[in-house]
């Protein structure tokens, strides 16, 4: 008998063959799956499990000069219902008793959901009513029957649900239950939403981002390249329950959040301006009005308030008319506020001195060989007026004579130098260039009208920065509103510097003008109500008749007061422009009536807020005053 191993030869061979064959079968199947049918299965996986998920970037914040949030981004949720999910889940319960219990639990959960969302229970129940949607038969592949209708799987329940509300929904527990209840068919979609914590404050400066994430107007639109950030994306795989399989994340490009923007607008100054605007509107009921406050030395805007205005969080219900930034987009005749241009020009050219006298009792004067009739003054003067009196009493006749001394071309050139007739470069609000015709197109009487601020048109911003030329010592400054750009971690990456557009006047001329403009707010001037004792208010009133149907109206006026203080070392420039105000008890809406009081009240509050020191009385030194500047 031959010796045998641990198994019979034949059986051993069979076993070995079976093992080898098994391995061969497994290997063949592996080759089939991984090599031959690879593309087929990969495409199935791609379709079923593979997704490219967008990762939206968070829009940067807009901050005021002191770091208060003016615009920020938060998430909110849109809740929706899949009405068919409830009957499907009820049907999935095995026993009738379980079905009844599940139905009862879900009904209670829906009632609690309605309560949490502040909706009537009937609204939630209505969203759960199964409904059908008609579709072309060729596209009806969502359910078994190609009958031209599919189940409606998405019914929007509520938009704008806060994270806090949603957390409470997720933690919703029914009485007697330990675990939170899952509300059948409730789905949510999370998205970024822009909010404006201060509502109406600085609405025309900020602009807004609409529901399609498109910025509209203001800083939101201008600084969009900084603010919007860069959306990211990632490729993911999901399991059968649509939960991401994090280990299969393939490629990922993280979102880069938007940069922050710091404005020169100061919330407190803006609030002062808007509060004054509310008081002004309540008293005079104007068609439009603007209050502008800027830093006299840098040109940066501190506040810009318009009437009418709107709540940034309710932009959808605001007419477009109210959304227009009238400070930059509307044209008005500047009236007497323009008189600073010919006077400063004549001083700068050495044609006149502050002591020069003008006969303001004349009715006409010969210019270019022809007699030109002056616009009438409100008062008759029995003595020649000095240059200072011409401006403090706002004499049309005196200003026209100075305009004639300058001549068409020089008057025009200076007006352009002061920023009239060209865009200032203000980045917000579709700025208009204004109207200032070339002297070649002037009519015969324009030389008497233009020096008084008629026959030209300007935006409130142009008028404001025109006055800023004198406040800044002779420079036309660029209107700016953005101070800094911050990266996502809040570190400054770019700072905007004050920008001088051009030098218009010699410093001595600007100083002489400032001294003369102080007299406007003196007891002899047109705006004594603008005076603030101890603070050297310099400014100019303006009252322009409105051109209605081709004729200057006697009843509709644009009243304004544009000025700065303290005159000897200007800190702020303030403009108050009131279009078609109605003084109580009737009367003309003079700038001294409708605008100058507002100027004084704004200035009075700015003295406190910006800690502007009073100017020393004659004999006292500024240094001593600064040392004594404490308050009780």
């Amino acid at each position, binding site marked *: 008998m031959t010796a045998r191993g641990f198994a019979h030869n034949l059986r051993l061979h069979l076993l070995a063959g079976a093992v*080898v064959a098994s391995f061969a079968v497994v290997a063949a199947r592996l080759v089939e799956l991984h090599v031959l049918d690879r593309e087929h299965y990969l495409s199935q996986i791609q379709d079923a499990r593979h997704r490219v998920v967008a990762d939206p970037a968070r829009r940067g914040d807009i901050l005021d000069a002191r770091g208060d949030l003016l615009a920020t981004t*938060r*998430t909110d949720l849109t809740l929706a219902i899949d009405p068919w999910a409830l009957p499907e889940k009820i049907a999935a319960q095995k026993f009738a008793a379980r079905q009844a219990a599940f139905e009862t639990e879900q009904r209670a959960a829906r009632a609690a959901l309605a309560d949490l969302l502040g909706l009537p229970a009937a609204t939630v129940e209505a969203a759960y009513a199964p409904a059908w949607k008609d579709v072309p038969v060729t596209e009806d592949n969502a359910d078994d029957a190609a009958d031209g209708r599919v189940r409606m799987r998405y019914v929007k329940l509520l938009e704008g649900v806060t994270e806090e509300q949603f957390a409470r929904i997720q933690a919703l527990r029914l009485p007697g239950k330990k675990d939170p209840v899952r509300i059948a068919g409730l789905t949510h979609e999370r998205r970024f939403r822009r909010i404006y914590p201060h509502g109406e404050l600085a609405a025309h400066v900020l602009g807004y981002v609409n529901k399609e994430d498109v910025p509209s107007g203001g800083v939101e639109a201008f600084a969009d390249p900084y603010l919007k950030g860069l959306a990211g994306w990632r490729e993911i795989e999901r399991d059968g329950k649509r939960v*991401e399989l994090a280990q299969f994340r393939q490629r990922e490009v993280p979102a880069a959040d938007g940069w922050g923007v710091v404005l020169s607008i100061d919330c407190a100054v803006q609030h002062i301006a808007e509060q004054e605007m509310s008081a002004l509107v309540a008293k005079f009921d104007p068609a439009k009005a603007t209050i502008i406050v800027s830093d006299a030395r840098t040109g940066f805007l501190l506040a810009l308030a318009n009437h009418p205005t709107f709540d940034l969080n309710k932009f959808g219900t605001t007419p477009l008319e109210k959304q227009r930034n009238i400070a930059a987009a509307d044209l008005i005749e500047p009236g007497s506020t323009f008189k600073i241009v010919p006077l400063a020009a004549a001083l700068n050219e050495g044609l006149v001195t502050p002591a020069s006298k003008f006969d303001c009792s004349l009715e006409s004067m010969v210019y270019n060989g022809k007699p030109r009739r002056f616009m009438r003054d409100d008062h008759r003067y029995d003595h020649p007026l000095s240059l200072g009196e011409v401006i403090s009493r706002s004499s049309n006749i005196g200003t026209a004579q100075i305009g004639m001394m300058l001549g068409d071309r020089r008057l025009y050139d200076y007006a352009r130098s002061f920023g009239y007739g060209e865009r200032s470069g203000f980045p917000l609000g579709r700025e208009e260039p204004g109207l200032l015709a070339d002297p070649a197109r002037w009519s015969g009487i324009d030389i008497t009208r233009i020096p008084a601020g008629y026959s030209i048109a300007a935006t409130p911003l142009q008028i404001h920065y025109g006055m800023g030329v004198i406040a800044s010592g002779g420079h036309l400054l660029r209107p700016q509103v953005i101070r800094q750009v911050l990266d996502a971690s809040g570190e400054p990456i770019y700072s905007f510097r004050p920008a001088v557009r051009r030098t218009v006047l010699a410093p001595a001329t600007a100083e002489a003008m400032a001294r003369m403009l102080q007299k406007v707010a003196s007891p002899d001037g047109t705006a004594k109500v603008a005076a603030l004792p101890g603070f050297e208010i310099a400014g100019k009133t303006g009252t322009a008749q409105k051109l209605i149907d081709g004729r200057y109206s006697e009843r509709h006026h644009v009243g304004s007061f544009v000025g700065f203080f303290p005159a000897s070392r200007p800190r702020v420039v303030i403009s108050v422009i009131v279009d078609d105000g109605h003084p109580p008890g009737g009367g003309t809406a003079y700038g001294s009536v409708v605008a100058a009081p507002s100027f004084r009240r704004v200035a009075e509050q700015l003295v406190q807020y910006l800690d502007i020191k009073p100017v020393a009385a004659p004999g006292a030194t500024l240094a001593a005053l600064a040392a004594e500047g404490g308050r009780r």
Partner: protein
Amino acid sequence: MHTRTTRAFATQIVLGSLVALGAGGGLGFAIVDLRHDISVSANTARVLDQRIAETERRVAEIGGLVATGQSPEALEQRNQTLALGLVPPAEGRVVRVGVSVTDRLAANRKAEIFAAETGQNLVPVRFNLGGASR
């Protein structure tokens, strides 16, 4: 022992297969375990990401609420609701002083402290100089 016979060869195949199965199985288990660990780690990272995002969302929401609560309009409303009677500072209510503020505050404080002692509850002190009596 026969090492070159057919049977021995078959034995070696069977043994080799068993060893390969064992090794392959062990390796498979190790790989499965490794992949499980990777999956757990990835899911933990994902959950942490979600929690960070959730926290950031809450921070942004609370930041917005704080900013709304601190807006000048809201503060004014609160001033009215709580009847605090706060008013904006106005130049007319400010007294600017021409002396050292520190000295002035000290003088005011001293005046407050000693004001009580100048009241009517004090008994006038009479000094009898040199023991003389009146």
